């Protein structure tokens, strides 16, 4: 069903070849091959090379050995960016998936108005990555923003949520949780695959709601949960727009919204330090690959495949 299942299948080996259509395949794939060379895998390899140079786009690149990579180890602003990014990923993704699963469970099983609810909850995940919503967030969590107005009704003293370094990141976490609609739809599709007879059998055996959830729903949904987890983590690592707009491009206040991607952008496209930015890009790739690998490894212990 998902891209991840496909990858699992590849490892197991696929069908054997009957007759080859190499020539036709070459022409059908020609644009894709060109893209691979020029736009995706080619640049990944090139950025590895650039990582060993000092390059500002004007003078030709100059080899400087491992300097850029050594700089990664000693760059304290980068270490702060890593801390901010990890916090963001590790807090917002579980919260987002918990909301997605929770609402999907509420929506499951022939609820009236399902299509309407589904659309209403899905809409934010289409809007969430836009500049416009980031502008809205800046107002809503600002000193005189909507949140403080509502708190004022209840007599609670508000504050500038975005201008305070202690809470600025939380507002972005809230924004990411707000976009739970897209994993929710995947959960809904997964829930529909679970055969009703399992629940009927469990009901006959006297299983309550909780044990039905823990013993049937969750195990059978675990491949979908795994899929959502892997993708949303990768996705969250790449967040950029919201932090950029909310902080006016600075990652402030006091670097509290300095996402890794934002730092990379500043190094590469404000300071035009292309060599260091390339090294940072590779480091990001390694981090995401490591997270994904850990996820796949941990999956052995909790993901249940019915096949």
């Amino acid at each position, binding site marked *: *069903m998902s*891209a*991840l299942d*496909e*990858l699992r299948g*590849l490892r197991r080996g*696929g069908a054997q*070849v*009957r007759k*080859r259509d*190499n020539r*036709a*395949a*070459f022409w*059908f*794939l020609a*644009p*894709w091959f060109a893209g*691979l060379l020029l*736009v*995706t*895998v080619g*640049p990944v390899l*090139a*950025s590895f090379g650039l990582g060993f140079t000092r*390059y500002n786009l004007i003078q030709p690149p100059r080899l400087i050995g491992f300097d850029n990579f050594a700089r990664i180890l000693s760059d304290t602003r980068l270490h702060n960016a890593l801390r901010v990014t990890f916090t963001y990923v590790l807090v917002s993704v579980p919260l987002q998936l918990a909301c997605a699963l929770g*609402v999907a469970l*509420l929506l499951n099983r022939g609820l*009236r108005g399902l299509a309407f*609810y589904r659309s*209403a*909850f*899905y*809409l*934010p995940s*289409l*809007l969430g990555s*836009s*500049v*416009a*919503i980031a*502008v*809205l967030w*800046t107002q809503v969590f600002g000193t005189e923003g*909507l949140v403080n107005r509502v708190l004022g009704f209840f007599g609670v003293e508000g504050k500038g949520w975005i201008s305070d370094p202690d809470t600025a990141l939380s507002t972005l976490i809230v924004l990411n949780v707000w976009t739970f609609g*897209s*994993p929710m*739809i995947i959960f809904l599709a997964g829930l529909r695959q679970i055969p009703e007879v399992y629940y009927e059998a469990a009901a006959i055996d006297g299983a309550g709601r909780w044990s039905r959830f823990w013993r049937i729903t969750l195990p059978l949904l675990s491949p979908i949960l795994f899929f959502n987890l892997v993708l949303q983590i*990768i996705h969250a*690592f*790449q967040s*950029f727009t919201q932090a950029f*707009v909310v902080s006016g491009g600075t990652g402030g206040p006091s670097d509290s919204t300095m996402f890794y*991607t934002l730092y*990379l*952008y500043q190094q590469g*496209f404000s300071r035009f330090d*292309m060599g260091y930015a*390339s090294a940072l*890009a590779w480091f990001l790739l390694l981090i995401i690959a490591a997270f994904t690998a850990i996820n796949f490894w941990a999956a052995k212990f909790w993901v249940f495949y019915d096949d």
Partner: protein
Amino acid sequence: MTTERLSRLAKHAGLVLIGFVMLYPVLWMVVSSLRPGDEIFRSPGLILDSLQTENYTEGWNALTPSFGTYLLNSAILVLGCIVGNLVSCSMAAYAFARLQFTGKRWWFGIMLGTIMLPIHVIIVPQYVLFSNIGWVNTFLPLIVPKILATDAFFVFLMVQFIRGLPRELDEAARIDGCGHPRIFLRIVLPLMKPALAATTIFTFIWTWNDFFSQLIYLTDPEMYTVPVALRSFVDSTVATSWGSQFAMSVVSLLPIFLAFLIGQRYLVQGIATTGGK
């Protein structure tokens, strides 16, 4: 009976409440954009006393060129990306779904891997390449990658869809003497309309929203797209007028909302069958 009805009622009440809280800020932004500027800070409610459109005229003309140019630029860019994705991804998908060729499993694995490749990892050398051939401040660095099927998500979506089509149709056509190009154009392509629709709408929304790459490649105000222009507008007015910022934000979200209304069936199907992004 009654307890069951009660719990169903509670469920609906809960869902409506969650939905209302979630969508409230967006609704409030729309309403506030129609209020006089100084009222925005005072009114957390959704009731309009009078309809003011001055925020829209003010925001529309705040930058030079006006917002119409940015909307047009975004529209051109989106159209190019849609055409690119439809043509190149469907071709690649046909090959992966229907053709047998050397190293197919490897290539397919690489294709799936690129779905998860972050743009930030490739943007620097890509920028170096495109700036050296003079493509900065054109739409080419944003459109050409789509023509080269680099949105692997859509290749995968279409592969899934083609696999679901009955093979008997292509085999019958082959017996009638059709080659692959003709099978693709005459049989597979017309049958995969739902997948093409999903690709069109997703490409529309994602390209319209995409900020990172447009920010990097488009630095000349004449070439600004909506998100880049909106950000530059917000930066230039630093908190002076929420009204006009909200108004232009609403303008920028309207096309997405319309695309969502028209295409939500395909969006939901597309996410559910591929696992989404």
